[in-house]
């Protein structure tokens, strides 16, 4: 992993007597897309606000980039759930005003950002006449126009149609890959988060409970179905002999936690006289992991 450009150490935030976040530790490398999922009120927006400097943590340390890829520009781009722009101005004019705070990018760079998100920079249409999806795209354009090193996105797909979600996914991936922008994304759309993120943190009651890592998919459990129940006995004996952990799912189905390639496993089981009906190696989806965390509490 490249040197982390975002470091969150033991961060906690308390409101009254309620800890909205507790013991949050996180590092994000340049070009990495990290997802953050959890039920409502689990502290997702609070963490994004802390990282953006909008609120200060009660405890812990947060290090984020102070400067973007352009000298003197803002180090962080932010998209929140709402896209609050001046309704009487065009999309370009709104962004021009925000860019004027730092005054480090040209009109062309603003237009480029608007184009990247699929809007027309020359359109004089007032933001008040934009659809919610168009506002969300404009919010993304304002976040990326000054080339920040870190992009914080809170529910960026809210109100977007399927086509727009796919385009947003491609845009985020290319921003991370081509510009090395680190992206931290909180969303309820688990499939989208799984598709776009390299790593997903699952949070519950203000604490990170589990990390879903795409690169761990090689270690996915293997599910073996035997021809009948008697073969299960042979299979279990073989598993115990090799010290492997397993879970019996059905009378003729076992889930095995194994690092061995599937063909090699099949060979070994055949040699052990286990009649195999079927075999599948499948990593749990983010949704399955999320359900097991939230509902089963695993």
């Amino acid at each position: 992993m490249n040197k982390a450009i975002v470091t969150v150490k033991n961060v906690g935030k308390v409101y009254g007597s309620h800890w909205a976040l507790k013991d949050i530790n996180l590092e994000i490398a340049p070009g990495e897309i990290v997802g953050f999922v959890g039920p409502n009120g689990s502290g997702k927006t609070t963490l994004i606000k802390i990282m953006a400097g909008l609120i200060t943590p009660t405890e812990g340390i947060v290090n984020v980039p102070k400067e973007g890829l352009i000298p003197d520009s803002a180090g962080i781009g932010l998209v929140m759930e709402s896209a609050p722009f001046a309704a009487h101005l065009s999309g370009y004019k709104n962004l021009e005003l925000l860019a004027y705070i730092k005054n480090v990018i040209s009109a062309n760079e603003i237009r480029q950002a608007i184009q990247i998100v699929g809007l027309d920079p020359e359109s004089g249409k007032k933001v008040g006449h934009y659809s919610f999806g168009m506002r969300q795209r404009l919010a993304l354009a304002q976040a990326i126009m000054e080339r920040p090193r870190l992009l914080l996105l809170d529910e960026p797909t809210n109100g977007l149609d399927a086509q727009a979600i796919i385009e947003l996914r491609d845009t985020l991936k290319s921003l991370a890959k081509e510009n090395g922008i680190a992206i931290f994304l909180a969303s309820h759309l688990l499939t989208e988060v799984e598709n776009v993120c390299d790593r997903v943190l699952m949070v519950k009651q203000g604490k990170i409970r589990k990390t879903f890592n795409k690169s761990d998919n090689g270690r996915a459990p293997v599910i073996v179905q035997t021809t009948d129940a008697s073969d299960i006995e042979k299979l279990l004996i073989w598993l115990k002999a090799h010290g492997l952990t397993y879970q019996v799912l059905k009378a003729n189905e076992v889930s095995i936690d194994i690092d061995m390639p599937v063909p090699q496993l099949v060979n070994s089981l055949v040699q052990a006289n286990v009649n195999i009906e079927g075999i599948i190696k499948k990593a749990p989806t983010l949704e399955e992991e999320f359900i097991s965390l939230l509902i089963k509490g695993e």
Partner: protein
Amino acid sequence: MIFRQIIIELKRLMTRPIYLIAFTVLILLGMGLIYFSVGDGGPAGPGEFAAPDASGYWTAWSALLRVALPVFLLIPVFIGFIAGASLAEDRHSGYWQFALVRVNSRIKWVFGKIAGIFAASFAGTSLSFLLLALFSFLLYPSAPLDASIASFNEEFFGNSPYLYLGSVAVMLGLGAGAMAGFSCLASIWIKNPYVVGALPFAFLLFSLVPYSLTRLQLFDLFSLLSLQSTYLSFESITFSWLVYLIICYGGAIIFFGRESIFNNKKGILK
């Protein structure tokens, strides 16, 4: 950066349709009063709206300062309404978050925002007064400023009528700024932009009516309503506005500089 924030706020506020409409309507109202109420420019007739100045003739000064005076009370209130609600609107919509990640300092952002609100209310009000003055001077003869016309009785204004004009423009601008500041301060407790914006009306009542009722030589509302000569103390009025400006804007900067204010989504009152 604060200068740029002021420019941004001026552009955001002064291009708003509601601002432009209020500005245009009030200017037209003032122009209408100046044009239609004065009569033919000769001595005042029995049905005319108000008396001419001491010379017995309508002049640009008497048309501007006598007939259009009610408009100069309304302009700061309406401009203050629109500008003062801006802070509550930003808080309500979440726009402040976009700005704050760029400014990186809450105090700097609040200071820039409030300076912009003051600049927008000051500029709009002063400009409207000067526009009406221009209209009046184009329409009527610009005779010397008569002491009976000047609302402020400081003697030196008699020798420097254009200094008087500028001073009134500045004083009205400060008044509008104070009213917007009152809204800014109220935004701490009230999050609804419309309620906050409406507070300049209350501000006007609370600040002027008691003075008028007690006749503390600051303002005589009764005289104003009858469009008779009204003498005010320029220093007292300006001093009052400055005190309001310091209290309202200072309070707003101190309170909004604290993060708990912005992260209290509901406000104390809705």
